[in-house]
């Protein structure tokens, strides 16, 4: 759907990004300074790359060789910026309908009502941006982008300038948007939690280059991408479904095709889909099912690979059903236990991060 192939010079390094993305939410992920914002600005038409092409749905938006550069206003891409960038001299309502000044046909009373309801900003319409909280501003900014009827929604770290509570508030609306509007989105972020929560695909960017791209499970699970991702630690990402809730012990049982995981109850509803992340350093390996142990989550699987990495630690990939678990253990443990690919082992999981609603701290 969107195909990006651009080179651009910017302070310090050259940006050289090449990737395609489809429908759903694509996360443009990487540590700050990786060139994410330049890429999204090039897609939006706010900067003109030195070389390359950008094609959306068969329409060439940028082609350096042919001298094509469709201006931002004609691309029909909504853009939600990190700092809401509301127009201070307009009321919230005027901000929301700003795009209609330039294209009357975009206006629809029912759309307006719908977006205002979806984002819960009905009470704010007469206010000025200066009178809004950070979260409210960001909701209005999302509404303003939506009301321009975008073919693609670009979000550049829309949560970065918000406190934790507001983050979850906006994340909730973004999820709602993803599930309701079906507008494809490109979501720039350096926060793993947001990516896991929202994205279907990930494009991992480091120093201006695309290091990996693919499904969230595939990319975020790769231990070798740890440095590229910066804050991101190696580990596994597993899609699960809430199988049972034990209110007495305040636990939730998550099922996936390799077994079950027990986690603290987070207000789960049975049947709900939950994506969990298990860090490689939280996984230990045993050859026999351990007994008399406090660890709740012990999964049986088969070793697929054993890779020594620098610093004496070893990354072990363990297939558990269709899921791939990662463990980081010492070289000595590998030797003492005789861990080799094909061996049946038990993975002991000390901690699980979940992203049920993003309602964790």
């Amino acid at each position, binding site marked *: 759907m969107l195909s990006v192939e651009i080179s651009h010079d910017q302070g310090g390094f050259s940006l050289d990004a090449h990737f395609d993305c489809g429908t759903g939410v694509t996360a443009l992920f990487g540590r700050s300074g990786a060139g994410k914002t330049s890429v999204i600005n090039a897609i939006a038409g706010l900067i003109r790359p030195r070389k390359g092409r950008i094609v959306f749905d068969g329409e060439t938006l940028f082609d350096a060789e042919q001298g094509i550069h469709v201006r931002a206003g004609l*691309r029909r891409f909504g853009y939600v910026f990190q700092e809401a960038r509301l127009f201070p001299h307009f009321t919230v309502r005027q901000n929301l309908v700003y795009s209609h000044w330039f294209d009357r046909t975009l206006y629809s009373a029912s759309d307006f009502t719908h977006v205002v309801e979806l984002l819960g900003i009905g009470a704010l319409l007469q206010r000025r941006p200066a*009178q809004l909280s950070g979260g409210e501003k960001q909701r209005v900014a999302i509404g303003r982008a939506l009301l321009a009827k975008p073919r693609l929604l670009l979000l550049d770290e829309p949560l970065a300038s918000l406190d934790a509570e507001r983050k979850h508030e906006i994340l909730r609306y973004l999820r709602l948007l993803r599930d309701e509007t079906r507008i494809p989105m490109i979501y720039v972020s350096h926060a793993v939690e947001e990516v896991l929560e929202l994205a279907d695909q990930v494009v991992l960017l480091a120093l201006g280059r695309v290091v990996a791209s693919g499904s969230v499970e595939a990319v975020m699970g790769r231990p070798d991408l740890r440095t590229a991702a910066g804050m991101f630690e190696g580990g596994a990402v597993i899609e699960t479904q809430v199988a049972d809730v034990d209110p007495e012990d305040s636990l939730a049982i998550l099922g996936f095709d390799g077994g079950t995981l027990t986690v603290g109850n987070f207000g789960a509803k049975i049947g709900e889909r939950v994506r969990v992340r298990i860090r490689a350093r939280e996984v230990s390996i045993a050859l026999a099912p351990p007994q008399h142990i406090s660890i709740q989550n012990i999964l049986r699987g088969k070793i697929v690979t054993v890779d020594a990495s620098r610093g004496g630690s070893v990354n072990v990939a363990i297939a558990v059903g269709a899921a791939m678990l990662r463990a980081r253990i010492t070289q000595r443990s590998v030797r003492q236990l005789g861990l080799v690919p094909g061996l049946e082992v038990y993975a002991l999981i000390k901690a699980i991060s979940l992203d049920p609603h993003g309602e964790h701290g």
Partner: protein
Amino acid sequence: MLSSEEISIILLSLKVALLSVIISVPFGLAAAHVLARRDFPGKSLFDALVHLPLVLPPVVVGYWLLLLFGKRGPLGAFLEEWFGIAVAFRWSGAAIASAIMSFPLMVRAMRLSMEAIDPKLEAAAQTLGAGRLGVLLTITLPLAMPGILTGMLLAFARSLGEFGATITFVSNIPGETQTLPLAIYALWQVPGGEAAAQRLCVLSLVLSLAALLFSEALVRRANRRIKGYDAVR
């Protein structure tokens, strides 16, 4: 209280200052926008040209204007022939002289307020469908309004006091080009005219002060309108 002569001098001065602002605003806005938002080779030269009236002796400006707009000057002949307009030795000529002399002040205030606008807001407007003109009309100009008003009022007040270029270009003709400062100068030359000159001096002070206070109030209002609160300066 005020003699009819004094009133007509004041009215003429206001008329000249008003026309001078009307003439210079479009050029002032364009120059300010170019200086605030564009980068091009020769920008510093352009900037220097805009500021030239500030440092050039006013008599030089007046003299050049006379050469340019006089009956045999290139622009003067053109205006006379095609539109039947003569500006030399007319009050409209005084307005042109004032417009040029107050131009740097006007541009400076407008430019500063345009530079203070976050270009990110203009980029946001672009993504919402606004073209260059759309961004200018809906974002840049409204947000720069306090500075635009300040620039206009400063230019107005400066025009009220314009002397050197005016007297060189359009001379000192009572009822036609004799604005307040020129009248003060004329009275000073006449024996026994000091008291009358003194009255005009005070009038001049009151007028200038009023213009500045009015500008201040207007800017505060504009700031409230665009930001929802008084801007911190």
